[in-house]
């Protein structure tokens, strides 16, 4: 797999990590000081397992210092644990799902684990995202509750607003399960600005052999990862999400003109062309991902956007990396972060709600809910 070299969008302090991720063979030549800089940054970016996986694929481990091996192994160990817990959760809930119309579609990290694809290796999922048809949602929720699953947040306004405004229920937990279960009925809030074609998400979902589950088709997985980062987050510390997107672009491959055209068409179907373009601009800037340049010129009709354009990218570049690999001051990162948080709240609220500037309970509660969801985002 060809990874290319990192460009000038990334902070200087992050270049060693990006280089090691993009050209793992180069890691064989690092001295102990080099690793000493690299490993803590990878760990904070939650990319240590991914780094370890890529390095071990290309470098004979016996050529690496013992201490380095220990830390790379630690990254893989943590990832292996999360993977195991994910598989255990999926195995446990399978009986509860039977009898309720599917498909039962795994999203994001849980999907990569279930498919056992290279993209999933070394990652650290913290929860399992499962999307079921709206008509089955109540039945599945009930079945899970009977099987011992409970909602973590039980406050009434949380419950109400999740169900009324959102595309997902509050997280569920169960005894003996380390991971949380997030039930979705689509991938973005129904009241939101982007309107994916949910019916096609389901109808084009693909089964995962040996399991009762489906995953989104490859284009939809990629687009979901993209909106999760550029539409549904504040970018802060989310480099690992961009690493996933870069890997998926390469796997397509984005260099293939037909694959690119099909992806753009799919993005248009889901109303996600601008986020797609933005993701390509970010990947070009951070990873020089092949095919991004072409994708950007192919989507020029999407127009420049306030929310998905150059200005946001400049801010995102300052906050994507971990806090222990900054070029600028911590203050400038914080400032960029605050602006991106505000953008995130703005995007989450539908246009018609913004008309209400009074401190009416509805608006404030939604903002609180939006903030709470933001705060809960980890992994």
């Amino acid at each position, binding site marked *: 797999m060809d990874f290319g070299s990192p460009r000038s969008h990334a902070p200087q302090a992050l270049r060693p990590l990006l280089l090691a991720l993009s050209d793992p063979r180069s890691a064989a030549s690092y001295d102990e000081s080099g690793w000493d800089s690299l490993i803590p940054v990878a*760990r904070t970016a939650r990319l240590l397992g991914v780094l370890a996986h890529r390095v071990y694929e290309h470098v004979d481990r016996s050529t690496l210092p013992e201490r380095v091996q220990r*830390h790379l*192994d*630690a990254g893989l160990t943590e990832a292996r*644990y999360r993977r195991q817990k994910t598989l255990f959760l999926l195995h446990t809930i399978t009986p509860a799902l039977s009898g309720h119309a599917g498909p039962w579609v795994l999203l994001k990290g849980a999907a990569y684990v279930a498919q056992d694809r290279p993209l999933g290796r070394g990652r650290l999922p913290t929860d399992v995202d499962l999307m079921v048809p709206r008509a089955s949602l109540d039945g599945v929720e009930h079945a899970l509750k009977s099987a011992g699953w409970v909602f973590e947040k039980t406050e009434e306004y949380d419950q109400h607003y999740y169900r009324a405004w959102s595309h997902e229920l509050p997280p569920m937990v169960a005894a003996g399960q380390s991971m949380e279960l997030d039930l979705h009925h689509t991938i973005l809030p129904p009241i939101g600005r982007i309107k994916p074609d949910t019916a096609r998400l389901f109808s084009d979902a693909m089964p995962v052999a040996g399991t009762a589950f489906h995953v989104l088709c490859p284009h939809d997985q990629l687009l979901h990862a993209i909106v999760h980062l550029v539409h549904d987050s504040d970018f802060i510390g989310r480099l690992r999400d961009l690493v996933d997107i870069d890997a998926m672009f390469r796997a397509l491959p984005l260099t293939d003109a037909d694959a690119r055209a099909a992806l753009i068409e799919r993005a248009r179907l889901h109303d996600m062309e601008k986020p797609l373009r933005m993701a390509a601009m970010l990947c070009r800037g951070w990873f020089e991902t092949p095919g991004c340049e072409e994708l950007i010129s192919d989507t020029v009709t999407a127009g420049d956007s306030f929310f998905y354009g150059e200005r946001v990218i400049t801010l995102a570049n300052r906050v994507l990396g971990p*806090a*222990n690999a900054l070029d600028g001051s911590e203050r400038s990162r914080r400032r960029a972060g605050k602006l991106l948080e505000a953008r995130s709240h703005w995007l989450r609220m539908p246009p018609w709600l913004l008309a209400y500037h009074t401190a009416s309970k509805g608006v404030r509660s939604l903002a609180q809910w939006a903030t709470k969801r933001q705060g809960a985002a980890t992994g």
Partner: protein
Amino acid sequence: MRIAEIPEQLLFHRLSTEGVGIDFGSARARVKTNLPACAASIRTVYGGYFADDPSGMFDVTVDLRRVRGIRAYVRPQCQLLCDGIVDQEPFPLDTSLPLLEWGTNYSLATRLYCYLLLHAGVVERGGRAIVMPAMPGSGKSTLTAALTLRGFRLLSDEFGVVRLRDARLLRMLRPLALKNESIDVIQRFEPTAVLGRRFPKTRKGTVAHLAPQPSHVDARQEVASPALVVFPRFDPAASVELHPVQKARAFARLAVNSFNCEALGPQAFEALSQLVAESSCWQLRYGDLNGAIKALRELLDEAKQVDGPGLLSDKREAVRW
């Protein structure tokens, strides 16, 4: 040159610039601080260690710094950066060493998935180790400290470091944190013991640190075999009572009282099983420290020497995909 022999000014200079490497045995840290008081504390409680070259690779870099800004005038504070990130709440400026110690322990516990880390005090004699799981009220730290002052060598006060491939105990030599009455007990028990200053008003009460002895520091790369697992229970009303503990139960209590047993899955299961298989397991109820030490010495002598298994079936390589 040991840290205690380095002139205070010079040590502070090194700590406040590139830092100083400190080797605990199974892990090593690069330590930095820009606080003179913290440097002075380090000189005492790490006196027996060597100040290693700070270049190269370390398992963690810890940096104890004064908090800057307006608040610093109202309530002076210090904070700890671990690999450039602040994980802990700031402490009052005059409580810097406890923050350095607790923060460093936390960093080690969350990074070292290469070992099975039990929450226990571990000492050894003749290469045979006593593992003492840390339960609240056990008096584990006091007992560990006292043992190290009576012919047992320290592996660790906090971490039972178990090598996954063969269940041997490794060293994680760190200053022993003593709390409240324990400090006086140890001071009376051994007046020559090197104790750092007392820090009152911490979350855990008054804390002081016992410096590991130079000869114990010198042994930091030595490996020990499991021989005893002892669950201590301090009871001022008791003298010394020993009760055998079922091995399977000892296994369960050790697993529950570990930092990362669950995350290591099958490797931890195998290593912990081996450790318990080779150990004699006991509950020790004691009010008299000298009596407890004597009892442990006898117990260690009596414990059957079991040959190690060589490599366990799951080698470290199994961690890879």
